[in-house]
């Protein structure tokens, strides 16, 4: 393998570098001419958006950390100082806090895309599993970040979430003490959360790199869920999808900007502007919105260990999803039975989100239990059965020639392209 790379770049400087370290060749191969299915819809923007979001989070986070003090006596005040005294500190903090929400919006849509179009199926099982790892790291990072301002919700959120581990039989309490570094959430806890909150995004970056490497081995799925058969089915990534991603990014940035500039505290809780008080729990502890469905599952089970297990199970089930779904057809477009059920799953998750935001009384308990049951029923019972019961619609023979010509196959084809027989280019 030793030996210089034969670079095709004309520019002498780029050529010199590329000969010794073929980064330019790699970027051109993976993001320039990379053959990409030509029928992507806007759901395929969200991976790129998540990358942009991570970059924004790291950039704002690094500068916030320059002004933040991870000490129980000073953390809250240092955040208020960022809001009032640091140049553009308010902007950095609001972008970072709302950036977390945007990140979960983007990633949840990205995951829905995967569920709807069967992106987790052969040969992309590992790609999907790495994605679930990314979700877990994101959740841990977001949780620890929320603790840092050391408001009431920070403190009590940290207390409640770390106490989940006390449900583990025998060693639970020892583990919680270890997590805290003491006998309650205190300075040691805040310090380690800050350290880990700063570390995790870089771990995340590494895992995302693996996610992308795996993606570029298998190639992207597409709205039809069928394999790329020939070069006619693809477009070079640049300029086609760089431009399409840019369009989506503009919309994403507009939504982001609206949140930051017009409703920066919409998704937060007023209680977190009260400094942490270890002697007084707020009347209602609610996690950030992106954790609400999982929180609702936790509360739906009238048993401590059971609730914790089911909550973690809600994510664990995603790990084995590629083997739970027995249907060989990827895209829900061709799965008449799966399609309504995926809609029901979305409704169930939204309901769980609402349940999580309300006190566990009356109708909310019932709704929470029904939705929880459906969530697990969907993955553990329906998906294995559907593959056997369902009769999929006929699949198009290729991306360039969908059998469904009306109602959206691969989008409108240029006249002549479909009529002409395929030719090797």
């Amino acid at each position: 393998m030793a030996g210089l790379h034969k670079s095709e770049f004309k520019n002498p400087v780029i050529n010199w570098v590329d000969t010794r370290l073929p980064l330019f060749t790699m970027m051109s191969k993976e993001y320039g001419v990379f053959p990409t299915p030509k029928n992507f819809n806007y759901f395929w923007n969200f991976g790129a958006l998540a990358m942009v979001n991570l970059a924004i989070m790291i950039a704002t986070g690094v500068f916030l950390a320059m002004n933040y003090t991870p000490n129980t006596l000073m953390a809250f005040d240092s955040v208020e100082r960022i809001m009032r005294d640091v140049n553009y500190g308010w902007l950095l903090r609001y972008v970072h806090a709302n950036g977390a929400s945007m990140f979960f919006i983007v990633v949840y849509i990205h995951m829905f895309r995967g569920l709807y179009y069967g992106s987790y199926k052969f040969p992309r099982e590992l790609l999907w599993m790495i994605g679930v790892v990314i979700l877990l790291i994101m959740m841990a990072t977001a949780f620890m970040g929320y603790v840092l301002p050391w408001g009431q919700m920070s403190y009590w959120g940290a207390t409640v979430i770390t106490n989940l581990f006390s449900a583990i039989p025998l060693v639970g309490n020892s583990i919680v003490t270890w997590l805290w570094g003491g006998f309650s959430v205190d300075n040691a806890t805040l310090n380690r959360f800050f350290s880990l909150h700063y570390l995790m995004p870089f771990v995340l970056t590494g895992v995302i790199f693996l996610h992308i490497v795996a993606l570029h081995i298998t190639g992207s799925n597409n709205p039809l869920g069928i394999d790329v058969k020939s070069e006619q089915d693809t477009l070079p990534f640049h300029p086609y999808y760089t431009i399409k991603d840019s369009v989506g990014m503009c919309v994403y940035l507009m939504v982001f900007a609206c949140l930051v500039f017009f409703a920066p505290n919409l998704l937060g809780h007023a209680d977190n502007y009260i400094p942490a008080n270890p002697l007084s729990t707020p009347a209602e502890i609610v996690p950030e919105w992106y954790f609400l469905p999982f929180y609702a599952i936790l509360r739906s089970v009238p048993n401590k260990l059971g609730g914790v297990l089911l909550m973690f199970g809600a994510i664990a089930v995603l790990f084995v999803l590629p083997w739970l779904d027995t249907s060989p057809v990827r895209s829900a477009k061709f799965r008449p039975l799966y399609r309504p059920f995926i809609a029901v799953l979305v409704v169930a998750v939204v309901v769980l989100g609402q349940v999580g935001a309300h006190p566990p009384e009356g109708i909310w308990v019932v709704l929470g239990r029904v939705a929880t049951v459906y969530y697990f029923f969907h993955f553990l019972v329906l998906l294995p059965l559907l593959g056997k019961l369902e009769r999929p619609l006929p699949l198009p023979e290729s991306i360039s020639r969908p059998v469904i010509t009306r109602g959206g196959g691969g989008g409108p084809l240029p006249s002549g392209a479909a009529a002409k027989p395929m030719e090797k280019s």
Partner: protein
Amino acid sequence: MSATAHTQTAIPPHGPDASKRDFLKLVTGAGAVIGVGALAWPLIDSMNPSKDVLALSSVDVDVTPIPEGQAITVVWRGKPIFVRHRTAAEIKAAVDVPENQLIDPATDASRVKAGHSQWLVVIGICTHLGCVPLGNKPTDPRGDWGGWFCPCHGSQYDTSGRVRHGPAPANLAVPPYNFASDTKVTIG
């Protein structure tokens, strides 16, 4: 465009639309650069002094307790400020030096406020590499010119805070200040 023409260049670079396309590319590129610049500025500016730091930019000093011949150190913007009550002999020594003997020529009058020439106010940071010179305490060495002596690399300053012996290249800086009254100095 047929589905086959997508290998390297989908659009001929110098077709009839070349100038329009170039224009669109330039506008898009410029928009992206301006956008990224606008996003980067808040990050960069957040590293500038914050409002609470700027708010500490002036201090009041009561000079009544400083006996003749002695000096105190006060902190202004995190820096030591020397406020020295000079004796008549020290003032005379500072005034009498011919300017051509100075490394960084400056009259004594230009370094004090008129009518308050017994008070010398200078930033106590050696102009060589930023150490704090000795000479405020009675036990400190004051160097051959009776001002300050920097322990780091041996620079010496006279009773007007002017450098008399290297390696420092310049006189001790005079901060912006004024006398709010005969006994109160406002620095900053």
